[in-house]
């Protein structure tokens, strides 16, 4: 019985650590997907001169979850007649639970919404390019950081479990 309890405690803490580690590992992947999506959006705006609702639809088709849902909501909001700026802000608020991104990431992504669709394509391109550049920097930092953190959490979970077992025994 005692042994079973010990195993359960270690397994519980260990899986919690692994879950946390997997969330940390998802962040750079999500940032990479965001960069891809913004590049697509940029192409649609500059080369395709596609109106935003349609452009979001195209981006939606070509990204995976959770970004797919993000752009689907954006498209829906724009079709309902919201302005692009508020739609972007509101979508971030309603969708950020589905992501593993940090506050600082959302701040940069939120910058896309300022003036989105309000100027000519050259200016839109410049704005999106700036955000992409900033996001790329964050992504590089996040890559190194998350690798360390993820490793730490995956070990730490099990170690905490073992420590707990030792204390309890």
């Amino acid at each position, binding site marked *: 019985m005692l042994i079973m309890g010990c195993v359960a405690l270690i397994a519980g803490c260990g899986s919690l650590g692994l879950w946390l580690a997997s969330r940390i590992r998802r962040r750079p992947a999500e940032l990479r997907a965001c960069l891809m999506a913004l590049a697509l959006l940029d192409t649609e705006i500059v080369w395709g*001169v596609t*109106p*935003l609702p349609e452009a979001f639809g195209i981006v939606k088709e070509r990204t995976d979850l959770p970004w797919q849902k993000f752009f689907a909501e954006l498209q829906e909001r724009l079709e309902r007649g919201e302005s692009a*700026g508020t739609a972007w802000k509101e979508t971030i608020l309603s969708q950020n639970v589905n992501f593993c991104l940090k506050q600082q990431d959302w701040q940069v992504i939120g910058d896309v919404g300022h003036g989105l669709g*309000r100027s*000519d394509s050259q200016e839109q391109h410049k704005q999106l390019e700036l955000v992409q550049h900033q996001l790329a920097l964050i992504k590089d930092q996040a890559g190194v950081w998350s690798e360390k953190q993820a490793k730490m959490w995956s070990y730490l979970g099990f170690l905490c479990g073992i420590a707990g077992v030792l204390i309890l025994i």
Partner: protein
Amino acid sequence: MSLHYTLSVVQAPKVKLNSTEPMTSQTEGSLCRSDQSAALWADMARWFGPEVRSILDKIKAVTFQEVEELRLRVGQPLLVRTSDQDLFLNSEGEITNPNKAYFVKREDLVCALERMTHSSVYAVEEDLRQGFLTLPGGNRVGVTGEAILQHGKIQTLKHISSLNLRIARDILGRGLKILPLLLGADGTFGHTLLISPPRAGKTTLLRDLIRLISNGVPQLGLVGLTVGVVDERGELAGMWQGVPTYNLGYRTDVLDGCPKASGMNMMVRSMAPQVIAMDELGHSDDVTALMDALRTGVRILSTAHASSLEEAQNRPTLAHLLEQGVFERLVVLSRKNGPGTVEGVYDLKTGRIL
């Protein structure tokens, strides 16, 4: 698209109700009409920000069917134009004098522009440069503001100061009256130019003629012809994402948003049209391309701004065309008895009024 559908439905009740009908059906008719008007106002209101929208939602005094233009100017009262009146609206949607009317704010224009472009100003850059936008349904919105120039050419407009929403009407059957006059002795369709001052129904008549020519009119012995429409301003077909809003007939191909000069060449080369139709001839490039197209044997159907034959002859680009004897028929329209009044049809070869 829904806009067009409802618009064409509303044209019918314009006919006066038969006086022998019992009173109940008359009141029902007018109720139905006011319902339709409210629905159409609501449909139009979606293009505006919250404040203007609430005004348009409350309008009762003017039926939508009478309205020709809706004008928003920064710091000026909200104005609705019918065929013979300018009406100022207050924030309750009632007609009032200019001083008590609702004064349009800059945000109203920004909001309207954002909604009309689906938050995609960059997508209508080319149109904005020419000072207009086209809404789904073919309604055209005139835009003025501060022009930004680069190398002497208009780059874009900023600080938008006025919007003029012109409501497109689709009036069936008017073309049928003048079409017989446009046919030559051998029953073939001749090169035709429709002229009128602004707001006199040129585009509406042109659309009707395109449909008739494309479908053919058996009672006039006119078989359907392949028509190529070069719709530079997206107004003729009211294209929205590749689907035309207006019915332009069975044999009509539409080149949407293409400059007339290059569009004519493209059409002739790729779609083998028998008739090429376009709106608002006026640029010298258009004239050169038109002369080219004439050599390929197509018939031309076009419109231009001018209120009379004399005025047309004084416009350099048109004068050149008229001197060359390009057009066989000239139709002059005016607003004398409402939009679309036909002032006269001229046979330019003989100079006779038909």
